[in-house]
């Protein structure tokens, strides 16, 4: 190889680096200042004792030692993982199904799309107000009324240790069904009709079309939805605070609820920061796994 092309290549590369840098810059400045620095700050607080009022004192690893002996931590971690593992797959499955249905040319499509979007705009306060009467455990509760027609129930909903978490999951899915549907829809819109036309000519059935065309082509979107919904669900806070307050008997107490209480109700910001560092590690672990696994099923380009 002559000298010239090599130089040319590295020059090209340098040009690309510069372009990348410039493209990143506006976001990166703000990101470092307003996202990264506070995050690092809260990480560091995890190694201190701090009641928010007097200045923090260095505590080494004592917070972390305490966390692993803390029953409430294990309880909330277990609840959170339960929530994530049941809610996320169900939610994504339903959202994708709905997105596929609403991507068709059917009557009233726009109406359905808007309606599924509505729960997203409900504040968590109104969610509690709506769902608490619905989920009353007597036969008078509206849901139980409905189920009694089907000769089922009455179910205790949030008033039993076994039923509380499934009830919260139900409301969580109700709230976020439309959210992920909107993102899936955007992904589906990006698929060219020509693929489907070709499939039709080949005489492929709907399932085959889904597994061979739709799913691979929206896999980058699916990956995004998977990662963000897991991150989001691990941080469940609003829903349980207003719906169950973490009860009964801590059955729906979540890690972020505990973190919030530790910081702002027990005045242990250092401990709360340490707890969130542990939560961070857990979420990070799951994200890395997904990233690794994604190489097998996500088709970029």
């Amino acid at each position, binding site marked *: 190889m002559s000298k010239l092309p090599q130089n040319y290549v590295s020059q090209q590369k340098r040009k*690309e680096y510069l*372009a*990348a*840098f410039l*493209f*990143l810059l*506006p976001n990166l400045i703000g*990101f470092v*200042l*307003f*996202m990264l*620095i506070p*995050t690092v*700050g*809260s*990480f560091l607080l995890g190694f201190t004792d701090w009641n928010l009022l007097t200045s923090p004192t260095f505590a080494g690893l004592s917070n972390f030692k305490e966390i692993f002996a803390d029953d409430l931590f294990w309880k909330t971690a277990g609840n959170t993982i339960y929530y994530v593992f049941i809610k996320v797959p169900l939610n994504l499955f339903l959202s994708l199904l709905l997105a596929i*249905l609403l991507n068709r040319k*059917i009557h*009233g499509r*726009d109406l359905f*799309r*808007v*309606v599924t979007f*509505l*729960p997203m*705009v409900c*504040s968590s306060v*109104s969610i509690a107000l*709506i*769902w608490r*009467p619905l989920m009353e455990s007597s036969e008078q509760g509206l849901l139980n009324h409905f189920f009694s027609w089907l000769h089922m129930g009455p179910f205790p909903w949030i008033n039993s240790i076994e039923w509380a978490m499934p009830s919260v999951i139900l409301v969580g899915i*109700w709230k976020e069904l439309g*959210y992920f549907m909107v*993102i899936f*829809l*955007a*992904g589906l*819109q*990006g698929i*060219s*009709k020509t693929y489907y036309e070709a499939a*039709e000519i080949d005489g492929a059935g*709907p399932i085959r079309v889904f597994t061979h065309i739709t799913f691979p082509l929206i896999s*980058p979107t699916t*990956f*995004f939805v998977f*990662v*963000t919904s897991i*991150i989001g669900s691990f941080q469940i806070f609003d829903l349980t605070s207003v719906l169950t307050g973490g009860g009964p008997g801590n059955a729906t107490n979540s890690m972020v609820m505990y*973190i*919030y209480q530790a*910081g702002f109700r027990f005045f242990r910001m250092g401990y*709360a920061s340490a707890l969130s*560092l542990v*939560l961070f590690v857990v*979420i*990070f672990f799951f*994200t890395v796994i997904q990233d690794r696994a994604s190489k097998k099923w996500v088709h*970029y*380009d």
Partner: protein
Amino acid sequence: MIGKTKPTTVVFIYLFLVFLFFVIFVPFWWTVATSFKTFDEVYTRSYALIPNQFNLDNYRAVFDSMPFGMYFWNTVKVSSVVCLGTLLTSAMAAYAFSRLHFPGRDLLFFLYLSTLMIPRQVVLVPNFILFKWMGLLDTHWTLVFTGIFTAYGTFLLRQFFFGIPRELEEAAIVDGYGYFSRFVRIILPLSKPALATLLIITLLNIWNEYLYALVFINSDVKRTLTLGLSLLRGDMDVQWNLVMAATTLSILPIVAIYLSAQRFFVEGIALTGVKG
């Protein structure tokens, strides 16, 4: 989209959708219905989906009890800056993360993702101290800055940009397009559905932003809508009929914008028809 579907399947699909419609819509409608009820009615006819009468007293009371227009305007201001800023900076960053190569790209991207993994309740205090140090407390900048730079938008757009066929860009390179023109003329127009999605999600988040607004904003003239509304349930004696009227008022604009964003989704199909 797939040619003919069996009539039974169509019926089944409709039944499923109508069922979902009721499951999802009824609780939402209940919010609207409650906004017309009297204080008594909220409790005595709590399930009623049709109020005794559609009077506007609650709406009037909401306007009387707070400078609703001012709060609304503050929210509109903050939201529009955050939406625009997020679309612009995330799209650019996402372009770098998806189409350009540079050392440490994936590592940096993971750093972006990492900041999503820490609960904001914990970042609140460090953020507060940062804003105090910058002299930005009690300004809308606090909400603007914490709103724009979340990794969420960058991640969303990065994933969509990955889906755009490389050949299109390669053709543009042959035509002598630089990075910026390729970004503006090829990537952005092809990403309209994704940009519309990000717009609506960003809007939703910033419109409902509560925790940060609560702590960073103090003066009445700077209060956002969510903050103003939260005061309606500020004490133990809550008038839920007013809360629901205010809630309905505050979510109408988002629903309206979502409705108009629908058209961009459709537009997106037409344009991306070139793909593949």
